[in-house]
């Protein structure tokens, strides 16, 4: 009797467990109503971007009763790639992702992206018309092998931020910002303050942390007339080249020869904090930080083009909206509706004003709110003007490890552990090793 009671108890527990499991499995099948979609979004820069995203998605849901979108915060750009891949592997891909524009090639190579050509065609428009809405400089990272894989959403270029008050103090004219590396070096020297050997104010700060460092190297290399990678083929990078050596040598000189840039690798938030607190008089940073600077700087500041050594050129940064592969048709369609809504001139303009990123949709700049906003904040124009000289963001097979191959070496240089030449030779060797499987798969049988 005693045992059977215990047995009953055990069986009851087991069956209740089974019932719970069965219940949990049965529920989704019965659900009807709006199509539920997830949007993964990263926050790579300073500011209140996460709150703005909530506002945007609420507005979308209010206007689209048949779709229920949920915004899911996924960390940095790198984290967002990782989380998206994990979700795809687990068979539950998010319906849309704001994905760092330079990861699209890598994802396409791994068959993780939905080709958007069919969705564009179903809307009764052509690829050319669809892409025509966006600044031409952005298409390099969105189109792969002549198919559309991403829709530009918020984009950036690097900018030179100048503390105008401090520039005036030392007799520099902030309305004529430095245009060449030589002039920039000169400005940085004048803006560096010392007490004995100790620096109390740095002339310039350039971020170098994973992700940012590679982008800044691309910026400097492009201004030096070179390029970072092969735009047509995902298996080649150009680290050990004269143009990149010149770029890294100049950066190294700012630190160790002119002593106007703090040694060591500095993350983006530390650079912007340094600038805001007056500890650094100039900085090179994304236009994505513009709203943060505007809201927090207690001094007059000025934004300018990135100075050139050989030519004016900057890489595109920022993110595109993508639809991962393997979604059911209903969700895919709902995600496409969301993407088109988010990249429309009005929404794209609103987002640009909220964050500091520029709006990829050219018509955004014709909306009355945007015209008004630019009149009040002329600093927001600089990034858009710089688009004329913008080029695609580096994108290769295994973009993140290939980028880190370079970043690890650049960090050693900025810490005085290596000279630029040996660092770049090592970076090239490491990157070639990382790219080897792709090269072996595609064109070459490497030794």
């Amino acid at each position, binding site marked *: 009797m*005693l045992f059977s009671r215990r047995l009953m108890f055990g069986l009851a527990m087991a069956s209740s467990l089974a019932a719970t499991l069965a219940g949990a499995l049965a529920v989704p099948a019965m659900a009807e109503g709006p199509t539920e979609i997830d949007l993964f979004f990263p926050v790579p820069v300073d500011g209140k971007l996460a709150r703005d995203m909530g506002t945007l998605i609420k507005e979308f849901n209010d206007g689209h009763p048949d779709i229920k979108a949920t915004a899911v915060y996924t960390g940095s750009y790198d984290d967002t790639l990782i989380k998206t891949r994990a979700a795809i592997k687990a068979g539950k891909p998010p319906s849309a992702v704001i994905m760092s524009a330079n990861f699209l090639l890598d994802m396409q190579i791994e068959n993780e992206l939905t080709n958007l050509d069919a969705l564009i065609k179903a809307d009764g428009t052509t690829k050319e018309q669809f892409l025509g809405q966006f600044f031409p400089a952005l298409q390099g990272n969105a189109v792969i092998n002549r198919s559309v894989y991403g829709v530009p959403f918020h984009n950036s270029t690097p900018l030179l931020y100048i503390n105008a008050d401090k520039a005036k103090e030392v007799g520099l004219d902030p309305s004529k910002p430095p245009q060449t590396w030589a002039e920039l070096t000169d400005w940085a020297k004048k803006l560096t303050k010392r007490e004995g050997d100790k620096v109390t104010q740095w002339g310039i700060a350039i971020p170098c942390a994973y992700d940012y460092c590679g982008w800044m190297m691309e910026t400097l290399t492009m201004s030096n007339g070179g390029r970072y990678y092969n735009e047509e083929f995902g298996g080649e990078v150009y680290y050990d080249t004269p143009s990149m050596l010149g770029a890294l040598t100049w950066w190294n000189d700012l630190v160790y020869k002119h002593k106007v840039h703090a040694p060591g*690798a500095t993350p983006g938030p530390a650079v912007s904090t340094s600038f805001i607190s007056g500890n650094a008089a100039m900085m090179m940073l994304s236009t994505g930080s513009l709203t943060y600077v505007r809201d927090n700087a207690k001094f007059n500041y000025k934004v300018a083009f990135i100075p050139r050594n050989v030519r004016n050129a900057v890489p595109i940064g920022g993110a595109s909206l993508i639809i991962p592969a393997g979604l059911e048709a209903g969700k895919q369609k709902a995600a496409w509706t969301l993407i088109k809504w988010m990249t429309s001139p009005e929404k794209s303009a609103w987002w640009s004003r909220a964050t500091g990123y520029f709006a990829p949709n050219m018509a955004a700049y014709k909306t009355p709110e945007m015209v008004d906003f630019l009149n009040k904040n002329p600093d927001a124009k600089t990034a858009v003007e710089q688009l004329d000289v913008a080029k695609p963001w580096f994108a290769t097979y295994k973009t993140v490890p290939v980028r880190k191959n370079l970043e690890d070496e650049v960090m050693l240089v900025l810490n005085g552990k290596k000279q630029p030449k040996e660092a770049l030779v090592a970076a090239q060797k490491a990157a070639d090793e990382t790219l080897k499987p792709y090269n072996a798969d595609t064109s070459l049988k490497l030794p």
Partner: protein
Amino acid sequence: MSLAEPATLPVATSAAPRLDVPKRLVARFKASLPAYLLLLPSLVFLALFTYGAMGRVLIDALYQRATPKAPVRFVGLDNIAAVLADPAFTGAVVNNLIYAVGTAIPSIGLALLFALTLSRTHAVSSALRAALFLPVLIPMVAASALFMFIFLPNVGLLDYYIGRLLPVLPNWLGDPDIALYAIMIITIWKNAGYYMLFFLAGLQAVPEDVMEAAHLDGAGPYQRLRNIILPELKPTFLFVIVIAILNAVTQVDHVFVMTQGGPSNSTNLVLFYIYQQAVEHYDVGKASAATLLTLAALMGLTALSFRTMANREGGP
């Protein structure tokens, strides 16, 4: 009808020799069935998430991941060889050893110091205990985010105070020579309070009368510590050392938040290396191989520690 009852049942049935063998087995099975049923949920989860995962790792380690154009293929021990030949892995192992020793010794030392100082309960000591224990309650991720601001070069709290004294401001997280030690500071700060709890518990077990007798015999504080307290704390020490070593390998939240293994792999730890291989390089084979090596090392180390404990005290 207590839950512990089934454990004693086999003894009861073996004392009933009249039953023949199958019946006895059936009876035993019937008797212990509820116990097994109660264990079942845990067993299912353990099998699924611990042993199943381990089995999967074992298999994955033998295969090379498919590239977009080449399928998965069996490579045997190649992945293990590749991991052992990877300077990033050997670097991570060295970093991890420095990290383990460098965090275990100071945090255990501090914990013992705290515990000895605060072993008697009165108002001040409980308040201090709570204060020292507080870091344990702060999630590692939150603590790391906090320390990121403390470590900010030039403008951070640390540079603000210490920077005035130093000729050159260190870039705490941006200098490959310093970053690992900067990260170790957080671990020590977090773990000292945790280990203090074990030592406090250990000190409670030191017999009052022995201490009193020693006191009457004229033993000074140092002699009492050396000859009574420390020997009594031996099992606690061994236990805390095992925990500290396991922590050194399993805690990587701060690496994630603060440095991502950088600059230049100077703060890369073994677990973070595994994560990098699996998700950044998308190389499950190599990640599994590194996991197996780590698992083997940890199991060996733990077995060794438990044996030492068993030999010394006849049981932990």
